């Protein structure tokens, strides 16, 4: 469903991705872990076609995303949604209007149907009370849930999550994890999740990959990641201060 082949990306001479290759099957939940600034979000943006790699290729459903014409990228993006770390809500629209935005813009449904769909997602994510609030009135966690609702109304085949549980309380984190599993179970959604939250990663992942110095150093099922022999992976997943990872 998603395939990255030798993807390289540098910003102002600094290499962020150095030949990253990975492949996700349809309906798989794939988690990327790694230190801050190791290119996890950059990887997601390559998959969404928001960044083009300096080298290598990105394929979505067998179609090459990088370097594709804008209409091809648009067609591929129709299949996917991103839950942004900050929520990325349009600040002059209410919660309702933010969630309805992709449906309103696509103009395929009448207003009453759009309202029903949005109300359903608001209920699902415990946001009914916030329906007419502005983004500025929401907490970080609520913004993230509104962003997730905005993704869900489009029924995407692929959902990319950027730190979906960061800043959420444990109950809401569990709710989001359940939702990610439910999307996979009920709708066969393919998910790629970038996170630092190892509890969440073990909870939802079919496979976990660790990104370090621009490369994937281990990609395996959660159990093997948990008991990894790789000292870098072991230090990271156990949150140890001592080890090969040096915090500058």
């Amino acid at each position: 469903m998603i395939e990255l082949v030798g993807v390289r990306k540098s910003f102002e001479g600094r290499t962020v991705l150095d030949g990253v290759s990975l492949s996700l099957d349809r309906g798989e939940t794939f988690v990327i872990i790694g230190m801050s600034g190791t290119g996890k979000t950059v990887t997601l943006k390559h998959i969404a076609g928001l960044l083009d790699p300096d080298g290598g290729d990105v394929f979505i459903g067998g179609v090459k995303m990088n370097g594709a014409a804008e209409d091809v990228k648009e067609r591929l993006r129709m299949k996917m949604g991103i839950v942004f770390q900050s929520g990325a809500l349009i600040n002059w629209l209410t919660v309702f209007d933010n969630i309805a935005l992709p449906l309103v813009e696509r103009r395929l449904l009448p207003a009453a149907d759009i309202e029903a769909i949005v109300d359903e997602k608001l209920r699902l994510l415990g946001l009914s009370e916030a329906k007419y609030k502005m983004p500025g009135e929401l907490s970080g966690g609520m913004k993230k849930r509104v962003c997730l609702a905005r993704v869900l109304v489009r029924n995407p085949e692929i959902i990319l999550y950027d730190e979906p549980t960061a800043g959420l309380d444990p109950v809401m984190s569990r709710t989001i994890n359940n939702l990610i599993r439910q999307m996979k179970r009920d709708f066969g959604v393919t998910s790629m999740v970038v996170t630092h939250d190892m509890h969440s990663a073990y909870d939802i992942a079919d496979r976990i990959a660790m990104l370090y110095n621009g490369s994937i150093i281990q990609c395996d099922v959660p159990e093997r990641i948990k008991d990894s022999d790789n000292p870098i992976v072991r230090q990271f997943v156990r949150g140890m201060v001592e080890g090969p990872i040096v915090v500058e």
Partner: protein
Amino acid sequence: MKGLADIVTYLGRSILHILGFSGYTILLFFRSMGYLRNIVRRRHEIARQMFNAGARTFGVITVVSLFTGMILTLQTGIALKDYGMEENIGNIVIATLTREMGPFSAAIILIASIGSAMAAELGTMKVSEEIDALQVMSIHPEDYLVMPRVVALTVMMPVATIYVNTLGVIGGAVIAESHLGVSFQTFYLHVLESLWFKATYVGLFKALVFGMAISSISCAHGLRAENGARGVGRATRNSVVASFLVILIIGYYITDMFFREGL
């Protein structure tokens, strides 16, 4: 020698950057104009932007326009009085306002208040990933964000110019009466005498082009912002500087184009 090479490299990079950014801005303008077919759908956003450009700058435009007319009348009137020609002050005030001062004053106010706000708003959206979110939803920023802003400022610029000209004349009339002893009636007769159609429409045409340029430049800087709050600040400052320079250059060429042969 190395210092010289560094300077040449820096200059070369700067020129390439300016050329690249100019190309991006022009492309952005034409791409946004390609979405004019959605003008009815975007009417609420256009109205919001027009309200920002109009109502939110009303106070400052009023003060600037009145004082522009007053200063112009006082400075020129004192010189004319030495030759006993102060009665002609109305001719000079209206000619100066309609041809240059009106559109320039309006442009400077709108660059400072609206252009900078546009760059800051879109810049903040860029660094907080809202622009990325729109793209992933297959909503084109040129359609959703840029076109309404360009249309709103292109419409509001001539309106602001007419307002500046009108208030400038009123301010001038007050000073002509109080400091130069020129009656309101004489002042207005001379204003009407020199209210040439060509000067008026060229001034409004200038305002229209300024509106397109300021909005496109501001949006381009906003959409290219990066590196958080500092990047947004830089984009805002650069949009103001670039807009000032561009309206000066465009203003000169429009004047040259229309007035080379005289009125």
